[in-house]
């Protein structure tokens, strides 16, 4: 069984795109369309990495990430923000979250998986 990835994105198309790319690469993909679901799945499944959109319907992805960092069991799970908020303010927002990364949308389908793998434990 491949590594577990949680993708949190409220846009169904983008969620599907990321899921397709990751599954092709052999990951087990969990999906969440809002932060609350993302938190529940993270605690339950302890994925190897979380791909988090920043603009989510219930809270900001960065906020959900901070909640995960406070919990001992989820504190060390790498979180990569895959977001359309590529302007300076968006990047500033995630700067202080440990073990986090940033991939701007639109994603490069050829390099996406490789980029994700770089944030994961070997």
């Amino acid at each position, binding site marked *: 069984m491949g590594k577990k990835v949680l993708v949190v994105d409220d846009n169904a*198309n983008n969620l599907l795109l990321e899921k*397709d790319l990751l599954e092709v690469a052999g990951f087990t993909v969990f999906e969440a369309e809002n932060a609350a679901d993302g938190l529940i799945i993270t605690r339950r499944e302890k994925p190897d990495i979380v791909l988090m959109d920043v603009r989510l319907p219930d809270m900001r992805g960065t906020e959900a990430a901070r909640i995960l960092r406070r919990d001992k069991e989820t504190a060390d799970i790498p979180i990569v923000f895959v977001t359309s908020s590529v*302007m300076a303010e968006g990047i500033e927002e995630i700067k202080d979250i440990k073990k986090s990364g940033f991939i701007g949308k639109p994603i490069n389908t050829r390099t996406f998986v490789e980029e994700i793998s770089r944030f994961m434990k070997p």
Partner: protein
Amino acid sequence: MDFLMKQCLLLIALLMVLFSVVPSAGAESRVVTVGVYENPPKIFTPDKTDTGEPAGIFIDIIAYIAEQEGWDLKYAPGTWTEGLDRLAAGTIDLMPDVAYTASRDQIYAFHSVPVLSSWFQVYAAKGSNIHSLLDLNHKRILVLDRSVQHDAFLQLSQGFDLDFTLVSVPDYHTMFQTVAAGDADAAITNSFYGVMNAKKFGLHDTAVIFSPSNLFFAAPKNQSKHLLPAIDRHLSKLKNDSQSLYYQSLRHWTAEPVRFRLPEWVKITGIGGILLILLSLGSGLLLKHQVTVRTRELETANHTLRASEQKYRDLVMLANSIILRFTPDGRITFLNEFGQKFFGYDATEILGRQVVGTLVPESETTGRDLRPLLEDISRNPKKFERNVNKNILRNGDRVWIDWTNKMIADENGEIKEILSIGSDITPRVKNEIKIYQLNEALRQEAEILEQRVAERTAELREAKEQAEAADRIKSAFLATMSHELRTPLNSIIGFTGVLLQGLAGDLNNEQQKQMTMVQTSARHLLALINDVLDISKIEAGQLKVEAKPFGLPSAIEKTVKIVSPLAEKKGLQLKLDIADTVDTITTDQRRLEQIMVNLLNNAIKFTDKGQVALYCRKENTQYVITVADTGMGLREQDLEALFQPFRQIDSGTTRKHDGSGLGLSICKKLLDLMGGSISVESTWGEGSRFTVRLPVHPEE
């Protein structure tokens, strides 16, 4: 001579009587210690006597009293201040030659009949016309250095408006010598020195006598129950008898020491006799005479002063003051000539008329009602001793007058008349009003200015807040736009990519071609979005450039690498020439790379054959980066608008090239922010040269 002999006989007789009394008084003999200091002839220790026994007027008198009272006298020699200290400490019983003062009375006990009276007196050369104080005008007068006489004389002369020169000298002897030599006009000494020495220097005493003081024996406080009353008792008796030892002693010590020579015996005795007679009249008589003279002087001086003051007052009043008298009910009884001229009335016209309504208007222009003024003045004269109010001239002009009012009462204290002396202060008041108005105007002007400043400040603050709010809205808008456009593009480009990569199955050639067109268009749209956002950010002032040092050659090589596949694809030669002097640059690396990529992409895009070259060299404090191509070039009329947004130059009727048309305008705006510049040279059909200049290090 007879007289002198008689005196001597008397003295002897007296002494004999005294001696015969002593044994009987000896029963209550007590020791009385007397302080001794040097102040001849009052008290001193003569050089000639080897006994060391003191002598002088005070010693004669106390010795006499001691004999009478059966006291055993002891002497305690010392300085004047030692004597006073001893007296205060109670180690001596009596201190002679102490002038009575209120402050000393607190410390010592005094008897009541003075032993001597002393004063200061002015002496002048014989034949000079100095007799009274007024004669000292314009004279040169000697006074003992730092003496009480100095201050006392100045105080005395103060009221007389005299002009004299006061010269300090160290001692009386010098003083008399100087006057005798004619180098000064007068000398101030104490009376005893004067009496003893005036004749010797050919000087005479004047009527100028001042600061009299009485001299006593002083005793310690509360220890004088018997001593002081005894001294008083004897002094009264002694002073009542002109033949007594008291006067003998005075004569003895104050007379000029005379050398007796036999041939002049008669003559000298005669002079001595006359002197003795004069002295026997006593200092009292002399003093009385001199006090009378002085009193007369003072009276004369006072009279003169009063007369001159009156004269002065009259002059002033008649010259430029209004003098007005009126009854308490306001009827004018007098107006001086000046007043009549001033107000414009004849005496016949104005006398008997009411003050209010003629000289005083019924109200001031300020609205102050002046009708009750007179009533107020007579009711409360103190408050109206000075009064400034508006008055009115016959011709209707209003004037300000400063009045000094005086109530004139009859013997019953009833106010009979009011005397008012006034001076015209209209010019002053007018000036004051003018100054006040000017100040007021200035103040109002300043207030208006301040208000305007406050308004402008508020406006500016509001404008600033609005601008800041607008900026915030712009930022939010840009961020939102960026996000909202990227989200669908992510799907379009992403799934196109998935299809093109064959992840969803193989595509046929036509599908592959069409999907590539979708992807290219989507990427172009993305580039366009990025450019629009960039330029919007720059124009909104949202874009900040960094300034960090980095190696310029490697940055250039990196950008060339990015564009090289494109050049290769078009079969263009890509040439790079970086001078050895090019090293570190301090600027925004990402933005500089963006600019260079943009220029290289443009060059490649518009060049179909030949080469694209990038040159970089250092010129003083600048780096110069040139991108040259052998492409189509630019027409002269297009050069100007080249750096404006959305100005892609069309090569013909159809738009042949991709691009937003924003690239060069973004480059220019970025270089402006980075402190650099961009320029272009081109020949139509031959190619273009874009030159970027950037400072090696930005100015601080």
